[in-house]
């Protein structure tokens, strides 16, 4: 095999690995291999490139890789886990910068030789690369609260943004048609850099994760265009995968956060967007399959039952789930709050009917100290008895009532028909905590689905 053929073969394997990386990452079961596949794919991509005859001088490459790694590693390892979005944004900025710089270098290196198609592709690469660079930096700054997280709007922002974009596009067109003058190139770069900032400025901190996904998409497209420019199929494949998955991911994230996609995207262009930070607290809604995935990795589970289980007559499903978990070696306990249900002993009679042995049932005082060490608290139709407001809000009607300290568990899975309040008629603070997964639906139905997902 000639060196070029070998590289192509390596690139092919690398592309396959990237595809597999996405495939593995789309299912919880295989997710961990996704990262390995991706890393291996990248390793091969780099190796394959180094093997090419055009690459003669390894010194700068080696030095740059070391410098870059020294920057990247602390960035990833030293961050708190709550800072994932901003670290991703920062990482993005680096990648996008690279794309922009490559386009820049190519322009000055081969500009005059490029036919309109390639010039166009180069301009697109540069445009996307630099705007993603500054956009990502700004997203990072907003999430890190280096600048205010609220949307920064100013009069005439539509016109300003559009004209900057227009300037960039116009410059690109001129470059494409005329293949020059070279002096216009910095204008293109400048416009791109500026537009990136203007695009992100009016978007609020809450929408940032979605925006980062879109920027991901742009960075991917930028790499894809680089691929067209350099006639490199691997770049095209990886870039296109990123481009489309980034777009879909941002739409999915929008839906999951209950925000309108167009609202987020076009926030820069003037529709709505003056959302106050506190308005419309969102809960995180998950599917029974998600709950099953979390339960399958738990070592200890405490099941908290309430009136919802009674109303749905789901006690048999609860027993079945408990049996299934115990058969897999999970430690399962039932927490019975003294006023759970609508009559004294309500939970007892139902669980007894389902055949749950007495020794699995724990009173509130016995089980509260165990919540902090428990992986999952599964709440089936209980509400007020888990509401932390009883501990924290003096003006709440349930203040002072002892509760089951479900919020101290590592993860809370909450099965409920809807967000309607319980007997005390108030909102449950537990719903809005980050460790809480809400699964909406009838208790019996949801539990049956969880059981099916665990078995399948």
């Amino acid at each position, binding site marked *: 095999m000639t060196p070029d053929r070998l590289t192509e073969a390596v690139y092919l394997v690398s592309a396959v690995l*990237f595809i597999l990386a996405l495939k593995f*990452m789309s*299912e919880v079961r295989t*997710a*961990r291999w*996704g*990262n390995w596949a*991706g*890393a291996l794919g*990248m390793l091969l*991509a*780099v190796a394959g490139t*180094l093997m090419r005859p*055009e*690459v*003669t001088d390894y010194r*700068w*490459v080696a*030095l*740059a*890789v070391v*410098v870059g790694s020294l*920057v990247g*590693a602390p960035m*990833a390892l030293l*961050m708190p886990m709550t800072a994932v979005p901003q670290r*991703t944004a920062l*990482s993005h900025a680096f*990648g996008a910068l*690279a794309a922009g*710089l*490559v386009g820049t*270098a*190519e322009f*000055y*290196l081969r500009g005059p030789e490029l*036919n309109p*198609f390639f010039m166009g592709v180069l301009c697109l690469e540069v445009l996307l690369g630099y705007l993603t660079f500054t956009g990502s930096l700004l997203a990072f700054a907003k999430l890190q609260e280096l600048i205010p997280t609220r949307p920064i709007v100013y009069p005439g922002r539509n016109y300003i943004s559009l004209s900057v974009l227009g300037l960039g596009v116009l410059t690109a067109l001129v470059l494409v048609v005329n293949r020059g003058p070279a002096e216009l190139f910095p204008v293109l770069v400048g416009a791109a850099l500026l537009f990136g900032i203007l695009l992100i400025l009016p978007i609020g901190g809450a929408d940032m*994760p979605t925006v980062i996904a879109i920027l*991901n998409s742009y*960075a991917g497209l930028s790499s*894809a265009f*680089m691929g*067209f420019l350099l006639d490199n*199929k691997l770049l*095209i*494949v*990886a*870039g*296109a*995968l*990123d*481009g*489309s998955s980034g777009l*879909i991911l941002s739409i999915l*994230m929008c839906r*999951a956060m209950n925000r309108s996609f167009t609202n987020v995207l076009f926030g820069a262009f003037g529709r709505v967007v003056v959302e106050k930070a506190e308005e419309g607290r969102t809960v995180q809604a998950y599917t029974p399959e998600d709950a099953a*995935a979390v339960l399958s*990795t738990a*070592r200890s589970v405490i099941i908290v039952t309430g009136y919802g289980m009674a109303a749905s007559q789901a006690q048999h499903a609860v027993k079945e789930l408990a049996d299934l978990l115990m058969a897999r070696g999970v430690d399962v306990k039932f927490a019975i709050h003294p006023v759970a249900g609508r009559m004294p002993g309500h939970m007892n009679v139902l669980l007894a009917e389902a055949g749950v042995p007495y020794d699995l049932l724990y009173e509130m005082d016995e089980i509260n100290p165990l919540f902090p060490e428990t992986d999952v608290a599964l709440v089936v139709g209980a509400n007020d008895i888990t509401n932390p407001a009883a501990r924290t809000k003096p003006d709440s009607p349930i203040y002072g009532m002892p509760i089951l300290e479900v919020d101290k568990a590592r993860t809370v899975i909450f099965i409920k028909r809807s967000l309607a309040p319980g007997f005390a008629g108030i909102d449950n603070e537990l719903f809005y905590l980050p460790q809480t997964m809400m699964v909406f639906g009838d208790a019996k139905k949801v539990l049956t689905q969880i059981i099916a997902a665990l078995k399948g």
Partner: protein
Amino acid sequence: MTEQGDILTNLFIFVLASFLGLELIRHVSRLLHTPLMSLTNAISAIAIVGSILLAGGHHDDLTVALGAVAVAASSANIVGGYLITERILRMFRGRPGR
């Protein structure tokens, strides 16, 4: 330089890969949104390929310099991206060896 036919071939590949990305991600569970975002971030550092060609090639100083910076930047992206993803995935792990 590449021919017209090659451009079309590349376009084919682009379109196919785009659809593939779409299909792979469409029904992903909410649990995986964050690690996916981080993974695709790492993959977009594929720009390193173009960067190496510039930094390691036989070019003028400006080109090599730009290329080197690009290599450094995409290396930061690669290392950072995969490590972040790994940390996110670690949180999912329940019991060792499961």
